[in-house]
């Protein structure tokens, strides 16, 4: 298990809990108790039951035959888009809401970019009858309007965040501030493998059901539980962490994360953190960041609100540094093209985020017999306006 977090919360040189003292009590409580809680039999039983009956797991592993023909290889799609609420985000929120209840918390806060994590959080709060406040950058509120309405219908309060670039980073800042101001009754459901230890590990564990299922489904369908490679998009990196998790020690499996190049990694309008970033501390973790020479965080850009983040989970920074995973990037145009290709070859409209992983297929040399698994992290329902505008339907 050489890619697991160590007891101080680090993956190699990345991670830790760079928190102000105002957050210490909550983070310390989580750090001391999360493993004991989530590994207890009654917790596992309830978590598995909800994933099965409420989320609809296992999500299918689908052999995409026409897309496979197009690329001259074998492509399987892990259909996280078919989960309840339309993305992988629900795996983590189900886990964290159960944990929050065990900790006796009665109020839930969350940040959201594309709105998928916000909807997934508002959903489990409705399920458990807990109060829910979701912070969302004001720009994202306007570009992901249907998800904002869904959250409200689910009973959540959505707070538009006006600071910075008004996107995911700023929403995360505001959620952290809320937690500092409400240290007793509130649990912060972070949506990605970012933030202070133990969040990156905890979220990765909740998402690891993705690769656990992949292994047994691959075995069933191909006779081997190990594919040639696994591809997933990476913003903070939660779906990639889940898709990679149980393959980390199977070094023969190539792991590929795909970042959002935005308008290109050689422009200022990009979110490809590992390509243009350097080590630093943001949102209480030491990781790779987009920043200037003075240590100020620079504003990312991506067509997909869910990848529009200037950092990356410390696990991925470590996988990048050690070479265990390879990280590519795809620009907005390549992503839109890849989304259309999947739509017309397979009848599946992917989320803009997930389409980054699809776009990377054009950059790979794949053998005819290679088994390639793409984590189709979310559905394109929320992105219809962007697609329709671009393609002119």
């Amino acid at each position: 298990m050489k890619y697991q977090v160590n007891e101080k919360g680090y993956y190699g040189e990345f991670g830790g809990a760079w928190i102000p003292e105002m957050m210490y009590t909550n983070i310390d409580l989580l750090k001391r108790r999360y493993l004991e809680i989530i590994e207890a039999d009654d917790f596992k039983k309830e978590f598995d039951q909800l994933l099965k009956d409420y989320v609809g797991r296992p999500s299918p592993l689908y052999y995409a035959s026409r897309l496979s023909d197009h690329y001259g290889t074998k492509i399987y799609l892990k259909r996280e888009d078919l989960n309840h609420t339309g993305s992988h985000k629900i795996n983590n929120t189900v886990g964290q809401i159960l944990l929050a209840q065990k900790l006796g918390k009665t109020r839930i806060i969350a940040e959201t970019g594309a709105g998928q994590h916000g909807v997934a959080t508002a959903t489990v709060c409705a399920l458990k009858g807990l109060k829910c406040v979701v912070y969302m950058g004001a720009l994202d509120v306007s570009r992901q309007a249907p998800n904002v309405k869904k959250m409200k219908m689910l009973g959540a309060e959505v707070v538009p965040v006006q600071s910075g670039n008004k996107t995911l980073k700023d929403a995360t800042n505001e959620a952290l501030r809320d937690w500092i101001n409400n240290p007793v009754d509130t649990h912060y459901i972070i949506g990605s493998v970012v933030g202070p230890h133990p969040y990156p590990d905890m979220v990765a564990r909740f998402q690891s059901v993705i690769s656990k299922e992949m292994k047994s489904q691959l075995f069933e369908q191909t006779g081997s539980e190990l594919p040639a490679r696994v591809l997933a998009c990476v913003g903070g990196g939660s779906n990639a962490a889940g898709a990679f998790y149980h393959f980390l020690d199977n070094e023969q499996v190539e792991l590929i994360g795909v970042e959002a190049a935005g308008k290109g990694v050689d422009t200022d309008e990009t979110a490809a953190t590992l390509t243009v970033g350097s080590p630093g501390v943001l949102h209480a973790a030491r990781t790779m960041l987009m920043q200037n020479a003075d240590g100020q965080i620079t504003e990312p850009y991506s067509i997909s609100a869910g990848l529009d983040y200037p950092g990356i989970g410390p696990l991925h920074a470590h996988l990048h540094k050690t070479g265990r995973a390879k990280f590519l990037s795809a620009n907005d145009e390549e992503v839109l093209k890849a989304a259309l290709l999947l739509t017309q070859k397979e009848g599946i409209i992917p989320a803009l985020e997930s389409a980054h992983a699809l776009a990377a297929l054009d950059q790979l040399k794949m053998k005819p017999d290679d088994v390639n698994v793409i984590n189709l992290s979310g559905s394109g329902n929320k992105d219809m306006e962007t697609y329709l505008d671009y393609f002119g339907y």
Partner: protein
Amino acid sequence: MNNRINQLFSQKQNNILSVYFTAGYPNLHDTVEIIQELEKNGADLIEIGIPFSDPTADGPTIQRSSEKALRNGMSLNLLFDQLKEIRQSVNIPLILMGYINPVYQYGIERFCKKCAEIGIDGTILPDLPPDEFNEFYKPYFQENNLHNILLITPQTTENRIRDIDEACSGFIYMVSSASTTGAGKKVEDFHRGYFEKVQNMQLKNPRIIGFGISDKATFTNACEFASGAIIGSAFVNILKDSTDLKNDIANFVKSIR
């Protein structure tokens, strides 16, 4: 060389007024004048804020001042440049306060040396946790006669307060209540029990109370339980609307004293 923070606490045990402001705000080159005026009007200690793009422990006032300062062109390099000759005109202790990332990019060892060169007496780096500080960085601060001031809050347990007291030097920054800066709490919201508990713990470091101290009433109240108190957001608000720094700073300090 004796540290000016130690000198201050040996001469004065109560009603110490510490004032925070964000460097490069309201205008890029106001930094030195603000420091000089604060000293002239009777501030005992000054915390110079290093602006950061993502100030997660700060409320709206300091967020805005940081954004503006960065838009004005403030950086850690420029701040050191502005402070180069500060010790020719200012004698009270000066503390740099900010988030760790700009310091980390500058280089923590290099930062400490530069502080010593200029005559900075202490640092407050809220997101550099005591554990990381103790394990990796403490010697750089000690070699440069720089106090790294640590925070405690109403949620900090007694054992942890003792650990922090051990790791800390200069003084302990006692956060008045669970909040980001400038929360505008009233005097009666203060956790009297927490203040009294800590007062009775016989800590080795003196204590200064901060967060939510905005006027004479909150300042006086806080000073009952510690050696002094810190005013931040309320002062930054004065600067925001100021058309006459000299006059407005004088009036502000007078209104507290």
